[in-house]
């Protein structure tokens, strides 16, 4: 861990030219990223007087006038419309409780089931321990509500799930899904990535599933590399 962070610092700071944010730079919480009225605070940053200050440890980036941070570490924070993978932990009279790897559990109402379910036979559809992929419908004081309305959402059958650091999820998906499509194409596996860092893989045989997992873990290990998609193509030739 120590080495990879050092690597990231070196790689990122090499590219930093002066104090303007044309390139990404590594920031820690509380660090002043930039000052002046020309900029607006974006994701994981806030304004204090004249300065824009970092809220998380990560790469600071300028998009137009907005300064935002791509976190390099940290826990998953649910947001509306996030797709998450979760595990059924309890069945109540009107729905299922889903562990989505966050401090609060998610709730999946019984109406989300694709067919009619008798209230006494709710485990016929989702039993305790089953894996589901759902979208966060709302976050309120009562809790997090999940929904199955969307493509590829619902109960996940067969395959397996594993976890990577949630902050690395954007790298696994890549620009417009380029990375995940590459992995799907090279391994022939079905892959579902949750924003909470859980990834579900199902392939035709065990070897291709293991290969898919290894490739994803390879990407998740690299904190900062440019041109990762090309690197992955190389990786697939070797492995």
């Amino acid at each position, binding site marked *: 861990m120590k080495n990879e962070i050092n690597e990231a610092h070196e790689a990122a700071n090499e590219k930093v030219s002066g104090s303007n944010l044309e390139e990404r730079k590594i920031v820690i919480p509380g660090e002043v990223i930039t000052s002046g009225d020309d900029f607006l605070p974006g994701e994981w940053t806030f304004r204090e007087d004249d300065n824009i200050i970092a809220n998380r440890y990560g790469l600071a980036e300028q998009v137009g006038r907005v300064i935002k941070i791509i976190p390099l570490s940290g826990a998953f924070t649910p947001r509306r419309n996030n797709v998450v993978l*979760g*595990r059924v*932990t309890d069945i109540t009279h009107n729905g299922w409780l889903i*562990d989505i*790897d966050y401090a609060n559990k998610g709730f999946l109402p019984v109406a989300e089931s694709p067919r009619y379910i008798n209230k006494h036979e709710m485990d016929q559809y989702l*039993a305790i*321990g*089953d*894996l589901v992929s759902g979208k966060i419908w709302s976050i309120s004081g009562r809790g997090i509500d999940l929904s199955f309305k969307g493509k590829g959402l619902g109960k*996940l*059958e*067969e*395959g*397996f*799930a*594993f*976890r990577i650091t949630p902050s690395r999820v954007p790298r696994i998906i890549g620009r417009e899904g380029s990375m995940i499509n590459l992995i799907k194409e090279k391994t022939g596996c079905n892959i579902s990535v949750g924003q909470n*860092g*859980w990834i*579900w893989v199902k392939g035709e045989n*065990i*070897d291709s*599933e*293991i290969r898919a*997992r290894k490739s994803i873990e390879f990407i998740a290990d690299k904190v900062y590399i440019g041109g990762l998609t090309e690197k992955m193509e190389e990786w697939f030739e070797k492995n």
Partner: protein
Amino acid sequence: MSSMKISNVTKNSLEKMFSENKRFDGRKLLDLNNLEIEYNVSKKAEGSARVRLGKTEVIVGVKLGTGEPYPDSPDKGNLMVSADLLPMASPRFESGPPKFNAIELPRVIDRMIRESGMLDLGKLCIKKGERVWTLFIDIYPINDDGSLIDAAGIACIAALKNARLPGLTKDNFPDYDKKTDERLPLSKETYPLSFTFFKLGDKLILHPTREEEESCDSRITWGISKWNKQYMINSCQKGLEVTFNKKEIIGMMDLLPKKYDEIIKLIGEKLNE
């Protein structure tokens, strides 16, 4: 690390993989994990070691003090093994009073060390009935990625090997500023080691990662040592609900000497430094 429990699909998938003798990290079912040992990680302890077994990491310190012997063994030193399962090691560990695992782990290791005869407690007597050496072995898991008992067992042996006795004052109290080169009365021929077999379906695995460990139905820990070319079982502890059958136990007995030699070959030289 995450606190989500293993899901049904992952468990079924692992079961299928195990039946093909495959694991996610490329090992075979009974292959051992990478092992690294580092000594003298603590300045204040008389002996200390850090062991990495795969991603599992354990620090063990041996602290030596003097105290009164127990009434039933007036001429023997005292041995105390304790573990503190720090919440930073795993989301499964909570701070607060020790729970089942935090009591079981040191007891299994205590039994393994004590019954192997590696440590001659009789030589740790300073004055019969009044003053003896007291050994505190403290286990601190830094990261729990499965097979914590096995990693802690190796770390304890390494820390014991590493320990030097401190000097004594006139009243037979330890003088920690006065360091000696004297080591603990350890046997040179035998090292106890623990091997924990995990069972999923009808397959047995060694040195599991955390996800493998969590999907398993049953486990059994053997403390074994070697004396005069004879392998001995010193201790045994079975956990979780599912049973082991006779064939599996016999299979383990055949395998244990091989695995024992494998680890001793790896760490034996380091231990004798």
